[in-house]
Structure formats: C-alpha cells, structure tokens
C-alpha cells in the first residue's frame, strides 16, 4: 500500500513516515501542494494523508486539483491538520461529499497509534 503524506513540517513528516513504514506502508512525502501533485503523479498513492495548512496553496486547493483528475477521484484522503475540526464544522459536508475526505483528525490530539488505526481502517475499506 502506497501512502502520500503531505505535511509541511519536516520533523513531523519524518515521525509520521517512520511510524507508517514500520507498519508496512510505503510512504512518499511532500511539503507543498505543488510537490504533492507531482508526487501523486509519479508514486500513484492508494491513500493520501493531508495537512490543510500548507504554504502558498492550501490543502483545500490541493484537494480540488487532485480530484479534478479522473484517476484520483476515488483515492481516500485522510485530513490530519492543526486546524481544529470546529473551524471546519460548516464546511465538513463539502470536504466529505464533494472532496471525498474519508476522515478528519486534529493533529495535536491524534497520536501515531490513532493515525495508524485510521490508515488501517481505510486500507481495509479499499481491500473490500
């Protein structure tokens, strides 16, 4: 299973990557939306883990771009963000229904174990 991790902080990205690789996933990382689009093209991910708050182009802009390609419309996206979910409560329907976000996790309250559990759950859904 290939994961594309879009995380702007290099140190956090390293921790998430190591935990996911230990669990058997192959992980590509990108700090910006632009790099992530290129990585998605070359790596062909099965799952995307996305931070909304990126430099220049936001994670939402990435999602609109990402979903505009037919090949990527059904790839599950897990949002792992430092933006509290309360700030997205009004637009959750758009994230879920329009942009296909499978789950939203608030980064400061999400341990590596919880993230792995979320990724495993999405993986199970893909296998079915």
């Amino acid at each position, binding site marked *: 299973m290939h994961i594309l991790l879009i995380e*702007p*902080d*290099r*140190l*956090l990205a390293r*921790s*998430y990557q*190591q*935990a996911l690789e*230990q669990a058997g996933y192959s992980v590509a990382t*990108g*700090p*910006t939306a632009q*790099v992530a689009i290129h990585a998605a093209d070359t790596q062909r991910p099965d799952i995307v883990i996305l*931070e909304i*708050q*990126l*430099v*220049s182009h936001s994670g939402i802009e990435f999602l609109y771009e990402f979903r505009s390609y037919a090949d990527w419309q059904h790839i599950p996206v897990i949002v792992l963000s*430092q*933006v509290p979910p309360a700030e997205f409560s009004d637009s959750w329907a758009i994230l879920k229904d329009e942009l296909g976000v499978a789950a939203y996790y608030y*980064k*400061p309250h999400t*341990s*590596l*174990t919880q993230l792995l559990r979320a990724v495993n759950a999405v993986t199970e859904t893909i296998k079915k």
Partner: protein
Amino acid sequence: MKQAGQNGQVTPALSEQLLLSIAEQLKLPFLQIARRAELASLEVNDPGALQDIQTTATTAIGLLDNYLFGARLALEDHYQLQMEPVSISSVLYDTGQQLDAMAKLYGVELELSLGGKFGPVMAHRAALQSALVSLGYSLIEALPSLQDKKLRLQLATHRCRYGIVAGMYSDVEQVTTEALRQGRKLQGHARQPLATLTHGSGAGVFVADAILQAMDSELKVTRHHRLYGLGTILRPNQQIQLV
C-alpha cells in the same frame, strides 16, 4: 494600534495578537517532541531520537525566552531599551551558534557571511540577538516547507546608505515587502498570516518585529547579493568611529 480598556487604560492590541501567534507557534515543538517520543514506544529503530528530542526541547526553551522578551516589550507602553555600541559580527556569530542544532535537525545549512569590516552599531545586544534568533527559527522551520531541495540560510551583514544591515537570507523569492505588510495586518486574525512563507503562525517574525521596534528600528525585507531575506538597519556608532 491601541485599544481603550475598561478602566480607560490603553491596551496594545498588537501584543494580544502577538500572544495568540506565540501560543499557536509553541504547539509545534511540543507536537514534535510528543510524536518523536511516541515512535520509541512503537519500537521503531530510531537511534537519533533522544538527541533530536533534546535539541527540540532545548530550542523550545530558548524560544520561550525570546518570545517572552518580545511579548514583554510589546505589552509595555513606551518601553525603551538602553542602546550601546555592539559588534554586529559577534551578534550574528552567537545567533548562528544558538540556531545551529535546530538548523541541522531541519536539514538547513547555516552560513555566516560578514562581507567587510564594520564598526560597532548602536543596539541593545540581548534584544538584537533575541530578535535574530526568533526570526531565524521561523525561517529555518519555514524553508523546508517551501521547497524540497538543499536548504541554505545565510546570516549576513552589509552596508547600505542608511547604516548597517543585519539579516537572514535564502534563495526563497516569497520573502517580499507585500507579504510582510499583509502578515502584519493579519497577525492574530488569521491562522497563517504569512501564508506564502510559513505554514505556522510566523510568531518568530512578529516577535522580532516587536523587539526591533523597541530599539527604534524595524524588520524589513532586504536583499543580500542574490538572496532574499528579512533584516534590520542599524545605526553605526559614529562616536567610536571618530576615536
């Protein structure tokens, strides 16, 4: 930017916004430490983890000191720092020393570029260093989130028509006067006031701004050779030069 409080006292609104930025910014090192420590419990082979956690924690403690310094200056009305003749080269050298461990952790190469001999400048040494460390931390953290290639940050000084410029420079073109102007406006109101530069709250930039203002100076977008950066213009100490 001031607001009248309930008892008629004047409250600096900017300092409240600065405190919000600082609180947001300080989440990051704690998050880094928490996740790195958790890796160990997952039995991930990570030989450098303890050292990295220590570096992150030590840097965070240093940052807290700098942020407190900046916040205190921003909260005080008409706070004035005592100026003294200061060697800008030694301030830049010490700033580099303070930032070095964190820069290595982020894969950022720190360089010191002291082009020419400059006499002393008028500044408050501790405040100037505090401003440069706060600014440096923000840029070190921001650079890898902007690009994926080898990263370089230059601590540099050069002469300009108004005095001696001291600042930090990289080849990132997003450091513009317009971005800084917008950032100052949005600080405390937006999660990401310097959206073209950093994914965080950019507190280090605004702390540096507050400290420099207390020295009757300001943070400016400047160029150093072909590099883009943020820095400040310092007044040369004319008296010493005459001697």
